[in-house]
């Protein structure tokens, strides 16, 4: 479980996060949503330590991440897998080298064990046999799946996905969403997904956090998001006429 307590973060005079508190449960897909510029990516980067918080605490299973020495932070980060918006694959390495990289750095596996693990991860994301391709030779969807394979190579306890569906067609988006959900349940990870994709929010979001004006404005489940009458979240999630109709139908079903 990851707990965020009263976190604030400013860049110069611009206050991005303002006393944000949230808890992200183990074995569930925790989704962070919000309009662009509201601070959701900053929150995720604060949680993983890519940004230092100004105030507040972040705890990974009761381990205080904010006041942790850098060496301990590095150790904790070995338990984190992250899928970046642009995949962030190492472009000078093949698919296999990308996935084997964290294992080479931190595991005591033999070469054969590493290769077995790479093949397992590639099979898990339906990319078996693509070991020798370079990232530039792969499509956007494939790159995301390779990044997921790399993120799960070390059996992470915590999985972060920053806009996993951006730039993907609807079918590939569904594929990625299903993969994230399956991995979360299969490996019992604490998964945090930052997304703009409302389909993902409804489909895979076990817990949803809505960030608005630098605050955790609303927190609930995918069923509760349909029921809520909170104007900010309704205007954001069900902004289009199409989504409004879907909401009406879903409310009838509930």
């Amino acid at each position, binding site marked *: 479980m990851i707990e965020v307590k009263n976190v604030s973060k400013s860049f110069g005079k611009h206050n991005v996060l303002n006393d944000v508190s949230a808890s992200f449960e183990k074995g569930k897909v925790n989704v962070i949503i919000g309009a662009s510029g509201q601070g959701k990516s900053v929150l995720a980067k604060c949680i993983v330590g890519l940004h230092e918080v100004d105030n507040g605490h972040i705890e990974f299973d009761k381990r205080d991440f904010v006041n942790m020495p850098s060496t301990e932070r590095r150790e904790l980060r070995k338990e984190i897998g992250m899928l970046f918006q642009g995949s*962030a694959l*190492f472009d000078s390495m093949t698919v296999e080298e990308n996935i084997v990289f964290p294992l080479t750095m931190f595991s005591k596996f033999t070469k054969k064990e590493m290769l077995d693990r790479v093949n397992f991860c590639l099979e898990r994301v339906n990319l078996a046999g693509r070991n020798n391709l370079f990232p530039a030779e792969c499509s956007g969807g494939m790159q995301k799946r390779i990044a997921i394979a790399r993120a799960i190579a070390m059996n992470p306890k915590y999985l972060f996905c920053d806009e996993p569906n951006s730039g993907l067609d609807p079918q590939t988006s569904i594929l990625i969403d299903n993969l994230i959900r399956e991995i979360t349940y299969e490996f019992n990870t604490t998964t945090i997904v930052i997304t703009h994709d409302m389909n993902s929010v409804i489909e895979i979001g076990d817990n949803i956090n809505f960030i608005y004006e630098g605050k955790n404005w609303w927190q609930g489940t995918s069923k509760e998001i349909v029921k809520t009458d909170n104007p900010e979240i309704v205007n954001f999630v069900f902004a289009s006429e199409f989504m409004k109709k879907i909401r009406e139908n879903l409310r009838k079903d509930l």
Partner: protein
Amino acid sequence: MKIVSQLGKYFMMLWIVFSKPDKFKVFWKRTFEEIQLIGINSLPIVALMSVFMGAVIALQTASNMDTPWLPEYTIGYITRSSTILEFSPTIISLILAGKVGSNVSSEIGMMRVTEQIDALEIMGVNSLTYLVLPKITAAIVFFPILIMFSMGLSLLGGWISLIASGLSSTDSYVFGLRSFFKVSDITYALSKTVVFGFLIVSISSFYGYYTRGGALDVGKSSTQAVVSSSIAILLANFFITQMFLLK
């Protein structure tokens, strides 16, 4: 004020760069890759520059020696001294600042803007030690070899140009090369080269690592890296010369 803050940031970066690598096996593998990229791939440009530089120094010296009071072997002596003391270590390092510096800065800068450095950090890898330390080690180890190679080719270029133009004989040129030779000149030149190699790679890495923005900013960082490392070379050259030759 900005210069002071940038200097502080640069030294903070160096403090982290010289931490213990996460895995020595990976560190040595990366160092040999960098020796290939930074060093061996620079051999052709260094060879080309050195031969022509040596040829021009020898021709310039020979053509300006119109007094009979100066012996013919002076041409070889001046060519050797200029090449070993200044032209090979400094001019070749300035050229390498352009070639290697822009390469290092743009490689690391591109990794920064495409979040590859963030990916390393998230995995728990010390990204500065992983990326920069092998480059610095490769430069410190291989730049002196490059410069010795340059010295040899420069002197060879000088000999070819003199023989081809008929301005001097092989015997007097070789006699000049061997006259008043001091081993300390080589020590001085190679010591300079180690410092220049360190400055080129560390400064370029600094600009690359702290790039913010997109492709345009990577280009800007690359230019800044070349300019700053060239200035650093000139300043370091001045101070090292003071220390070694005028003590």
